[in-house]
């Protein structure tokens, strides 16, 4: 079973994502800010991280650096309400950039594609 870490400061959103991805057959953990996400990546081997950008304590872009420093081969999907970062995500080392949308199929499709499912 593929392991996914969801990172977002909105706990209701995390819950929705968690339930949706579990239905798709993933094992899911959550974190509510960048710092917590980095700690979890250190503790456990995840296949993929879904990362929000705007978060308190440590934002997604900073966390992305630490996460990739910890685990080079981990896949990262940036998931945010801002389109303005879209030009840069590849240079930061993320694998996909999905705008937050009530249609979750796009996010699910991106995750499956990155995990070769």
């Amino acid at each position: 079973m593929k392991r996914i870490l969801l990172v977002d400061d909105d706990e209701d959103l995390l819950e929705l994502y968690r339930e949706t991805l579990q239905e798709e057959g993933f094992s899911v953990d959550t974190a509510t800010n960048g710092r917590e996400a980095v700690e979890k990546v250190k503790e456990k081997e995840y296949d993929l991280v879904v990362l929000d950008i705007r978060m308190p304590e440590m934002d997604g872009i900073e966390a992305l650096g630490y996460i990739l420093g910890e685990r080079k081969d981990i896949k990262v999907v940036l998931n945010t309400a801002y389109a303005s970062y879209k030009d840069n995500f590849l240079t930061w080392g993320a694998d996909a950039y999905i705008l937050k949308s009530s249609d979750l199929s796009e996010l699910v499709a991106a995750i499956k594609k990155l995990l070769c499912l």
Partner: protein
Amino acid sequence: MGGKEGPDIRDLLKIDEFLHSALELDQALCRILTALTAGEGFGFNRALLLLRKGEYFEGEKWIGPVSHEDAARIWEELERKKITLQEMLEQCGEKRENVLSKKAKEIKIHYEKLQGYLERKVRIGEPKFFSEILGTREFAFLPLIGRENCTGIILADNIYSGKKIEEIDVNMLEFYGAIAGAVIERALLYTELRKEKERYEQAYRKMKELQESTRRVERLAALGEATAMIAHELRNPLVIIGGYTDYIMKKLEPGEKLQEKLKVIKRTVRRLELALMNLSGYLKDVSPGYRSLPLSSVIQDTLLILGPEMEKMEIEVEKEIPEGLTVWGDPELLRHVFLNLLKNAVEACGRGGRIRIWCEERENEFVVSVDDSGPGVKREDVEEIFKPFFSRKSSGLGLGLSIVKKIVDAHGGRIEVKESPLGGASFQVYLPKGGEDEENIAR
């Protein structure tokens, strides 16, 4: 004065007064030449004026009769009407084109050819090369030197009367040259000043316009910032509402009555999301997430959103998009394109109108067309309609179609507006074809 002919010092002072009241160059030149040819003035038959323009002296004005017959007629008329010099000078400025004035414009002499002649000195019959231009060897050459510079030269002759030039008081003529030179200097300065003033006024107007547009942009930027913030705050809640609606719909039996209600929630959330996207203007720097998309479902999505409105307005919609066609594009952005075009079509055709959305396959692209039965786009608006802030509607910023064009351009496509067989406008979007499967989601 010493038996010589021409005006005396009192006449000259009067002429001087008249010349100085002419501020405009053209009027000044006209008066200068008239005083030379008038009987009460120097009484020359013809007078030609060349102005210094850079390295050249160029013919500017040439006044006088064009032939012996003309001369006889004019002089007889002047005699009869008893027009005074003052009257003649006042009437100056009525432009009369004749052979002489045309000929004057063809004369152009390099200043080096006149070296040694450009001083405060009247010469008779020199420089010799002028006799060819004038058609006589008897002429007066008068440099116009005001305060310092030679601004022009005058050539005057008596080609018709044959009167000897030597009979004119050369001292007075030299004095006149200085007066005329000063008048021209001043008129040139005046012209220059006026041009300068115009330049300043133009610069001022431009600055005002710029200020105005800067203020408008600033207002829009502030508005944009505020709306982007609001949009961001609303996005997560919408994702949660829409996402859970989907979640519940999947849990319910397909035939369950509540499914319909949930669909309405889903549709409404989608509509809000698209409205937010429009509002926040985040399309400014978007780089789309391209993939192969089923064209039919992109169109179906937008029709779903607009469905209730179209139904309410009793608009007949024909969708002729075959299944199985794929385009290369970003789903959210393309939905935005067709949503905008369809919304415009609905507004254009109004209650009871008709909309037809159809597609044509070309070699490497699809043409997707949204046709309506509205009033159509005016010919003069066709060029303007895709520019930002253009709008024929009373509400809205006029950004809709400019954003649409931006998106289509970003897809490597293009958009055109034509006349529709339904009577209204036909917005045709050219999009590159997609591949077989959905690939490169990240790119």
